[in-house]
């Protein structure tokens, strides 16, 4: 059940939270090492809206400022929004699917598998060109899918999945993937920084090309997840129960696991392994809006997007000109917040 108590408030609160995220994104565009005035950010954004092109006077704003906002900061903010939305939705899906509040995209080795795939592509020598990025992304997908298939087949008996084995196998494979990534890093010291970016997660190389790679997977993945929210609710109360309520449990699980793998792989391929979002955001929101995925899922998407934009903004502005990996920020700022919420919810239960 929710802290909002009344279901009637859910919709207005959701609309407010979307407006909040938009405001947050614009604020993030204005923050950074280059000093850009807030009204200028607005004018630049408005001038790029379809229909308004050329009608907004941009005098007094230098070309380099426009270029910073449109070519550097905007894709970065959008990529953070999309990755956060995707990772939180995947986390929320996996928590319901496995009836385990600790489930997250890193579970089952999806993230590390994608990371390993990307690392191999980088080591072989594909760079950050459009062609290279595409290849790295494909390698990340393959890594994620191969890992999930291995984990899935280990834990499958007949047509049923053993949950415990699934999670244990996922953890074991994750460790192995991480170890191989470390080894590859040692063998290719010259590419170490580049690989580090993948393993810690960063939006510093964000560009429109990455957005176009991520977007289709995200749209298809989220659509499939939203189609299944009712099923997810029922499965989260028990698999046999779900079956006796008329749900094709094994088929639904396979579809959603595939979706989770692909969406995670797409975010890892574009921005590296960003931990914690998929675990903490659905969990925090569960405490606020309840476990019904019909409201939890949309809030997770918005919450994950907001959280990563905040974290990435901090990654940019905390210690300029140095960049802090966004994965480090998510953990540093996320865990105390998470612990505080856990303590609060424990008190309200007692």
């Amino acid at each position, binding site marked *: *059940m929710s802290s909002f108590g009344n279901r009637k408030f859910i919709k207005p609160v959701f609309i407010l939270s979307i407006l909040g995220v938009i405001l947050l994104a614009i604020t993030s565009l204005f923050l950074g090492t280059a000093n850009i005035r807030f009204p200028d950010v607005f004018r630049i954004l408005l001038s790029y809206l379809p229909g308004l092109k050329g009608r907004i006077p941009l005098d007094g704003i230098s070309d380099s400022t426009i270029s910073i906002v449109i070519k550097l900061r905007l894709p970065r903010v959008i990529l953070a929004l999309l990755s956060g939305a995707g990772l939180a939705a995947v986390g929320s899906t996996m928590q319901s699917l496995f*009836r385990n509040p600790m489930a997250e995209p890193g579970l089952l080795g999806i993230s590390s598998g994608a990371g390993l795939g990307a690392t191999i592509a980088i080591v072989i020598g594909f760079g950050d060109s459009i062609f290279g990025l595409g290849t790295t992304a494909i390698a990340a997908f393959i890594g994620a899918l191969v890992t999930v298939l291995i984990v899935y087949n280990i834990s499958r008996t007949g047509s049923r999945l053993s949950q415990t084995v699934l999670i244990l196998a996922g953890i074991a494979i994750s460790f192995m993937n991480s170890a191989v990534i470390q080894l590859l890093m040692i063998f290719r010291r010259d590419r170490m920084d580049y690989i580090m970016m993948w393993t810690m997660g960063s939006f510093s190389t964000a560009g429109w090309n990455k957005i176009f790679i991520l977007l289709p997977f995200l749209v298809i993945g989220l659509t499939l997840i939203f189609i299944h929210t009712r099923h997810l*609710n029922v499965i989260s109360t028990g698999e*046999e129960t779900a*079956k006796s*309520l*008329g*749900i094709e449990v094994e088929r639904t699980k396979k579809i959603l696991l595939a979706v989770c793998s692909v969406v995670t792989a797409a975010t890892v391929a574009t921005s590296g392994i960003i931990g914690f979002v998929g675990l903490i955001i659905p969990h925090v929101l*569960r405490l606020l809006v*309840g476990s019904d995925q019909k409201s939890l899922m949309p809030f997770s998407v918005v919450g994950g997007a907001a959280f990563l934009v905040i974290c990435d903004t901090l990654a940019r502005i905390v210690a300029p000109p140095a960049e802090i990996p966004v994965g480090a920020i998510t953990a540093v700022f996320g865990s105390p917040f998470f612990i505080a919420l856990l303590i609060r919810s424990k008190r309200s239960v007692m």
Partner: protein
Amino acid sequence: METQGLVEVKNLNYAYGERKVLEDICATFRPGMVCGLLGPNGSGKTTLLKNMAALLEADKNTVYVNGMDIKTLAVSQLAKEISVVPQNSYIEFDFSVFDIVMMGRTPYIRRFAQESSTDVEIVQWAMKTARIEHLAERSIKSISGGELQRVIIARALAQKSNIILLDEPVSQLDISHQLSIMETVRDLAHEHGLTIVVVLHDLNLAAEFCDTLYLLKDGEIVCGGVPKEVLTYERIEQVYQIVCLVYENPVSQKPHIIPVHSR
């Protein structure tokens, strides 16, 4: 002949891997009757129940609902015929009682559709019948074990099926909840005409509330019939390996068993 809610089990065998659990089970369950499944731990009661609900992969042509082989029914079709109240209904996540009961409507709600006013009416009827209307907005995490069992029964009712299978619905409850839940279950059969199949451990509850009984031992049905025929002291001694006395309950005239000691 009324066939809605008729369940027939014909020559059902079931094994977990190499271990045979059910052997050549034949049984019939009729609408308007409460039928109890009795037997020691490991005798196959729950396995039989799960086979009847297609939760386990039984062979073809072994379980029939309304004359149809359940193997030929889609999962969603079967959910409209049979509801299950499982042994363990622990729910990890926080839902309202209303949400849980509404899940009983899953087989009727199309993928993109919202719950209709009919669904809401049926859920309200189910909660009223299971006597949990006052709990509707409460969290599933905040209610007692007895209340939870009623919520799960309400969810089963919301499925609007003609058959409800219950696996040890009262074994973890106090005596007053045991009686009141068994009374509710009996009303479902006698007043609403549902087919009720219930796994029980308590022989006296079974004698009191069931119209017919099947007694299982080592995966086979030892005998079936009305409580008076099934629950004789020789048979209880043989199946449970105990020494007991069997009296007649002076109020209900049903058999009443007093266990004396194990053999």
